[in-house]
Each structure stands twice: as C-alpha cells, then as structure tokens.
C-alpha cells in the first residue's frame, strides 16, 4: 500500500493550530490513560489497590499474573483460542481465495449473482444472529462441541474474506492469466501457480484479520459452551470477573494476558489490520 502525504507547508492560522494540538494530544492522552492504568494496576497488590485505585504501585509484584494464569486455567483457554483462530484462518483462506478467483476472473451471470448473495453476509454478524445459530446448533447437537464453534467462525468470516480477495484479484491484469492459459496452464494451475503467489499480500491481510476476529469473538463461545474444556480466552476472562469481584489486580493481570497476542499482532501486522479495517467500511 503506497502511503503518501503531501509535505508542502501551508499557512496555519493560530486558532487552527491550537485546535489541532488540543484535539490530537487530548485524544491521545484520553486513549492512553486507561491502558496505562490497567497495566500498572496489574502489578499492584490487593492491599494497595484497596487503599487507592489510582495510585501507581509502591511495590511491583507478579503475584497477580501467577494467580491469574493458574486460577484462570489460561493454558487450556489459550490452546482453544489458538486452535479455533488458526483452523478458521486456514480454512477461510483456502475457501475465500479460490472463490475470489472465480468471482473476479471467471465472469458469468451466475457468478455475479452468487457474489452478491455472498455480500449480503457482510451485513450479518455472529452476535446479531446468535439466536438462530444457537437454536440450530442445539437442534443439530453441535452445541458444546468444537465443531459447533468452528463452523460459524468460518461462515461468518468468509464473506469479508471473499470480498477482500475479489477486490484484490480483480486488480491482477487479465493478460497475465491469458499468458498462463497460452502457456498451457488450466484453471487449477493458474490458481495454484499464478493467483495464489500473486495474492500473497491480501492473503496475509485476510489471515491477520480473520485470526483477530476469531480471537476476540465472545458471544458464540459463551452461549454454546457449558463445558469449560472448549472455552476460549475471552470467555474465560469474562467468567473470572464474577468469581473474584473487586480483586482488580488479579482481573487486570488476566486482561493483560488475554490481550498480549493482540498486542503482538498489532506490533507486527498493524498495516494489514488497518488495511482490513479501512476496507471493511467501504463494503457498504
């Protein structure tokens, strides 16, 4: 993604300059404060927290983290979260890039119809259709199973992934595909040897975006998993809250633990996430 901002300076009237500074700095401070507060409180002992919620810790301790990890049974939760997110991501990529190729480059009246059918899925999320999903899953006996989590994860992420893939693959020059046809590649060959390697940037975006969406998903797992062994980090953290009212240090340590993978995504793949989010709004 090319990023350019014209660097020419214009005259900046002083009210404008002040407004710009106040708003940007003000909003940045507003953004950072709760995050910093969570972070240092998670290193604070319960007795210090009782004395003052806002004061930074006098003694920094890792006890909260130790307790949270063990009491929260985070190793199992992490395993599940990683399992669902990774499996979903792999399947979504396989399905969406091949469908994206067909929609973008094998035009016919039928594919166009199917594509718009797909786009309707952009308007619906897991949370907004949780009731039908729940009812259907209990009816099919899929509740309380890993499959019952994975199938909706794939289905609800596929629309956007297909949308991203189509938008990207449309940008691949038709002549390249024709050259491959002349060179003797069939559709499967073109897909594997031309489209897949060329679509690598969008595949990364789809992967990161899907992984992130699965990682933060809450409602579905919460609703269908009465069995704690299939729960995810999000559900685990939310249930900690009820068990340990007012032990904020402990809760915040759990929050930090649950957020760490997202922070890693943020550090390494911020551009891909931003690209996904900004395209997400344009799908309309």
């Amino acid at each position, binding site marked *: 993604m090319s990023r350019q901002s014209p660097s020419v300076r214009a005259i*900046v009237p002083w009210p404008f300059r002040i407004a710009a500074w106040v708003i940007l700095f003000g909003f940045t401070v507003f953004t950072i404060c*709760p995050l910093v507060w969570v972070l240092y409180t998670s290193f604070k002992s319960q007795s210090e927290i009782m004395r003052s*919620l*806002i004061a930074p810790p006098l003694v920094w301790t890792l006890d909260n983290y130790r307790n949270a990890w063990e009491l929260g049974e985070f190793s199992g939760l992490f395993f599940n979260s990683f399992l669902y997110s990774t499996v979903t991501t792999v399947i979504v990529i396989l399905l969406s890039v091949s469908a994206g190729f067909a929609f973008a480059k094998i035009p016919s009246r039928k594919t166009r119809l199917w594509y718009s059918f797909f786009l309707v899925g952009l308007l619906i*999320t897991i949370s907004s259709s949780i009731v039908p999903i729940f009812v259907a899953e209990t009816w099919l006996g899929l509740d309380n199973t890993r499959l019952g989590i994975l*199938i909706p994860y794939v289905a609800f992420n596929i629309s956007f992934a297909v949308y991203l893939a189509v938008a990207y693959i449309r940008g691949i020059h038709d002549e390249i595909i024709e050259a491959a046809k002349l060179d003797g590649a069939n559709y499967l060959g073109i897909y594997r040897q031309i489209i897949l390697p060329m679509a690598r940037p969008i595949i990364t975006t789809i992967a990161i975006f899907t992984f*992130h969406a699965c990682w933060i998903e809450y409602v579905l797992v919460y609703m269908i998993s009465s069995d704690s062994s299939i729960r995810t980090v999000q559900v685990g*953290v939310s249930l900690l809250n009820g068990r340990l009212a007012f032990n904020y240090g402990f809760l915040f340590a759990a929050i930090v633990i649950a957020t760490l993978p*997202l922070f890693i995504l943020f550090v390494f793949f911020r551009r891909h996430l931003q690209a996904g989010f*900004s395209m997400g709004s344009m799908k309309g």
Partner: protein
Amino acid sequence: MLLTGPALFVYALVIVLPVLYSLVLSFTEWSGVGWPRFVGFENYSRMLSDPVFWHSLRNNALIVLVSLIGQIPLGFFLAYILYRRLVRLPAFFEAVIFFPTLLSPVVVGLLFAVVFAPVGLIADLIGKIQGLPLFELLIFNSKSMAIVPYLIVILWMYTGIYMIIFLANLQKIQSETIEAAVLDGASEWGILIKIVMPGQIPVFLTTSIYAIAGSLKGFELLWVMTEGGPSYYSSVLGLYMIESTFSYYKYGFGSAVAIMLILLSVVVIVVLTQVAERLARET
C-alpha cells in the same frame, strides 16, 4: 463451481438456514422442548408494545448519534492532522489511537466496568478531588443516563477506526492538488474546508452507514460491562434479543426480536446505501 462451491456451501448452511429457521420460529411459541405452537404475529405485536424494546431502540439511536456527531467528525479531523503532518511523529499518534479498536470487547467491557463502578476509578478520582473518600458514582441509577458511560467507551474505543478509514481515503488525494492549493495561497484551514472536505463527502456517508450497522450488530461490550442493567436502563436491541431468548427460554419471542434486528440492519443499510449513492451521484 468447483472453486466457489465449498465457500458457498458453508455460507448457506450456517448463515442462510438459521435465519430462515428462526423466521419460522418467530411465528411460534416455543420453550425449547416439545413442538412449537403457531401464534402468528403475536410475538411481533408483543415486542412492539414492550417499553424495554423502545428504550433499547432509543439507546441504539443514541449510540448512532455519538458516532455521527462524535466519532466520525473527530476521526476525520484527527486523520487530517496526521495526513497533513501538522505534528511530529504522526505514525506514533496513528498507532496509539488505532490500538483500542483491536482490543476485545470483553476486555474493554471489564476494564470500563471497573472505571465506572460505584466505587471505581472515576468515583475514586472525584472523591480525591472533592475530598470525599466515600464518594460513589451513581450514574447507572438514572434511567436516562445509564447509557452514557457506554457512549464514552465507544468514543474511546472506535474513533480510531474512523480515523483509519479517513486516513486511507485522504491518502488517495493527488498530492499535486494540495500543492496547487498551497501555491494559490490557501491556508491550512482553507485546504481543509475547500479542497479536502468536499471530496470526502462520500466517505462521510459510508462511515455513517457503517456506524448505524455497527450499532445494531454489536453488543458484547455492553453485555460484559453492564449486562444492560441496572434493570434494562442501558439495554440495546441486541441485548434485548439475548435476554428475551435465554433468560426465559422464549425461543419464539427471541427469534422475533432477532428477525427484527436482522431486518432492521439489512433494510437500513440497503436503503441508506441507495440514498448515499444517489447523493454521491448528484454531488
């Protein structure tokens, strides 16, 4: 068909079938066991005469309002400041403001539940400032104000999305356009109002649609933060749907709310997209 088939199959199985299924259920009364009993439009008429439904809808409307007059203009202005590099280290500010959008709704809900708790962070702060160590924050006791903390949270969390969207669109502007305006003597204010803003009108429209759709779809954060409470004061339509279905096992009624919700989002978005397209064509 070989290429699109698998994706289509999963999609139809998981999205289309359940929606149809709950459309059927919405005309029945069913508690999860035995056979559903057909009741016609009774669920729908009961929903429309329920004050909780209307209060939830009102809260949804307030959320949209915060997006329209808060997040979107703010996101645009922040994006403009960064786009024009009016400060040092624009990449730093961009990253910081974007970060909260990535957080999980559960985590943010838990965090802000503590911030706005009766003896939470805000209460602590106000108590310290006013010298009242036992100060309690009682904003949730007011039926009309209970949604306000959530409005602050979404402003905190999602303004970054709008900033990112505007930034991506601003960066599509030919830099020669800005350079020409500078040579013509336009001030930064002039560039913003006369050169940049008009071109962003379609983006304002699409982000507005995005905000409306988002307000109808998401409720996890609120669920974790307030559970719609106290009572139903901070409820939204999504929570109303969950509560109606799962608190009393009224699947028929819950399905009616779900269908209403899906219908509302699809209709609102389709209509607004049409309007936006017409407007965009005229301008």
